[in-house]
C-alpha cells in the first residue's frame, strides 16, 4: 500500500540524510577541506542538510507515533535533542585570539581580536581587564591581568573569566616603528605586534605605501637591538640592510627607525555555552541506539 510505503520511506530518507551528512563531513575533514569542529557548520549545505534532517526527524516522530514504535520514537527524540543542542552550542560559541602589550586593556569589540570564530548569536567576551605584566619575574608561560582592581595570574590552562575562559598562548617583543619625513614630520608611530622569534615578518601600515621586512640580525651574535630591515614599495626594493635600535634609515624621502621594543602577550578566549548539554545529548543518543541494537538481537 502506498501509505505504508511512505511511512517506511520517511524514516529511511531521514536515515539517509544523517548518513550522507556524516559521510561527507568525514570526507571533507579527511581531505583537509574543512577543519574539524565548528567550521563544518559554516557551510550552507551542512546547515540546509541540518534543517532537512530536523524535518525528517519530526516526520519520523509522527510515523513512529502512528505505528506505535517505541524504539523509533526514542531514537527520534534523542536525535532531535542532539540536533537542537548542537545548534544552540554552535550559535553561542566563541573562539578568538588577541595580543595585548603590558598596560593595554581588553575591550569587548570585534576589532580587539586578530583571529577567531564566532557563532551567530554569541556575544564577545564581556569582562574588560588590563594586562599588567607578561611573564612576571621571568616565569615563562604566565601573565597577570587586573580586573576591577583584582590581579589574577593566568597561564596556558583555561581559566574562567566572566562567562568566558581565557588562557596565555605566548609572548614576544613588539618593535616600535617610526616613519617620518622632513616636510610632514611623523607619518607613522606604531608598535607592531609581530613575533620576530618566528623568523622574518612582513607588515605595512594603511597610511603608507611601504612594506617592511623585519627580522633579528644574527650575523653578530644574539644582539636583541640589531635588526635586518628591508623596505619595499610596490615592486621596488628601497632599502635592505642592518638597523640598530634608534638608528634612522633614509628611504626615498622618509626616515624609518625602530625606536623601542615592548613585550606583548598572545591571549586566547573561548565561550562554550551549551557544550555540556550537547555532550549529554550525544551520550543519550548513543545509549538509545545501543539499547535498540541490543533489543533487536534479543528478538
Amino acid at each position, binding site marked *: 500500500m502506498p501509505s505504508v510505503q511512505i511511512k517506511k520511506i520517511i524514516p529511511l530518507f531521514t536515515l539517509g540524510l544523517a548518513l550522507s551528512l556524516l559521510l561527507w563531513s568525514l570526507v571533507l575533514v579527511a581531505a583537509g577541506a574543512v577543519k574539524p569542529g565548528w567550521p563544518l557548520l559554516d557551510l*550552507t549545505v551542512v546547515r540546509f542538510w541540518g534543517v532537512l534532517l530536523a524535518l525528517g526527524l519530526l516526520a519520523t516522530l509522527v510515523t513512529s507515533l502512528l505505528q506505535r514504535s517505541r524504539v523509533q520514537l526514542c531514537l527520534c527524540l534523542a536525535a532531535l535533542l542532539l540536533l537542537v543542542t548542537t545548534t544552540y552550542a554552535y550559535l553561542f560559541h566563541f573562539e578568538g585570539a588577541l595580543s595585548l602589550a603590558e598596560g593595554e586593556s581588553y575591550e569587548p569589540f570585534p576589532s580587539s581580536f586578530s583571529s577567531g570564530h564566532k557563532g551567530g548569536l554569541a556575544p564577545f567576551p564581556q569582562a574588560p581587564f588590563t594586562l599588567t605584566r607578561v611573564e612576571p619575574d621571568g616565569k615563562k608561560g604566565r601573565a597577570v591581568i587586573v580586573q576591577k582592581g583584582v590581579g589574577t595570574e593566568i597561564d596556558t590552562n583555561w581559566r574562567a573569566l566572566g562567562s568566558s575562559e581565557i588562557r596565555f598562548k605566548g609572548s614576544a617583543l613588539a618593535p616600535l616603528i617610526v616613519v617620518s619625513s622632513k616636510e610632514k614630520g611623523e607619518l607613522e608611530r606604531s608598535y607592531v605586534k609581530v613575533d620576530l622569534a618566528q623568523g622574518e615578518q612582513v607588515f605595512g601600515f594603511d597610511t603608507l605605501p611601504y612594506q617592511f621586512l623585519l627580522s633579528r640580525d644574527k650575523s653578530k651574535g644574539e644582539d636583541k637591538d640589531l635588526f635586518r630591515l628591508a623596505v619595499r614599495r610596490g615592486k621596488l626594493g628601497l632599502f635592505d640592510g642592518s638597523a640598530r635600535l634608534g638608528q634612522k634609515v633614509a628611504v626615498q624621502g622618509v626616515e624609518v627607525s625602530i625606536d623601542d621594543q615592548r613585550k606583548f602577550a598572545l591571549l586566547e578566549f573561548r565561550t562554550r555555552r551549551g557544550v555540556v548539554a550537547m555532550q549529554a545529548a550525544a551520550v543519550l543518543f548513543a545509549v538509545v541506539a545501543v539499547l535498540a541494537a541490543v533489543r533487536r538481537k534479543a528478538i
Partner: protein
Amino acid sequence: MIRPEFNFPEDILFKGSDKTYLLALLLPLALLPLVAFASGDGAYIRYLLGKAVPALDESERIKAAVTEFNNRFMDIYASQGDKRGIGAVPATVGMRHSLVTDSGSLWVGGQVLVYDIASLDFRSVQQDGPLSATVLVKEEWNYQYKDGKTYKDVGQVHGTESLMRYRLLQQGGRWLVQKSEPVRESGKGVKTGA
C-alpha cells in the same frame, strides 16, 4: 498502546519494495554535492575533485588571477595612476584600497613611476584549502620615471626582480588576491631597485 513488535530499521529495510527503499536511503548521499553547488559551496566539492584528480585542480585559475592582477597593476601605473579600472582588478577590497593608496603616492618630486612586466615565473602554486591559496612568483619588472607634466622619460629604464608571495581567496567563484608580500630568497636577499 505502543506496539513493540516493530523493529527499526530492519522491518523497513527488508520488506516491501527494496529498490525504492534503497533509493530513499542513498539519494541524500548523491544529492549533497549537487546541493553544495546550488548553495554556493561548490568550491568544497571542486577541492575534493582536485584532490582526487590532479588534472581538475584550480592551479591554472589561480595562476590566471595572479597574472591578471599584475597586468592590471601595470595598467594603473602605465596610465599615470588612473584608477578607473580598479574595480576589475582581481583583488579583495582591502587589497584594492592599498593599490589606490600606492598609486596615489607614485608621484615623487613631479615625476611619475611607470612599470612594465618583464617576466612572471611561477615557482609554486599551493591550494591551502577550498577557498585559499598561496602562490610564489619570481618577478622581473622594468621601471622608469617620467616627467609628470610632459610625460617625457627621466633617466634610464631600470630592471628589478623579486620573489613575491601572493595569498588568494576565492569569493563568488573568483580567485582574488588578498595580500602580496615580498619574500627574501635564501642567500641572495631582496634586490634593491631604486
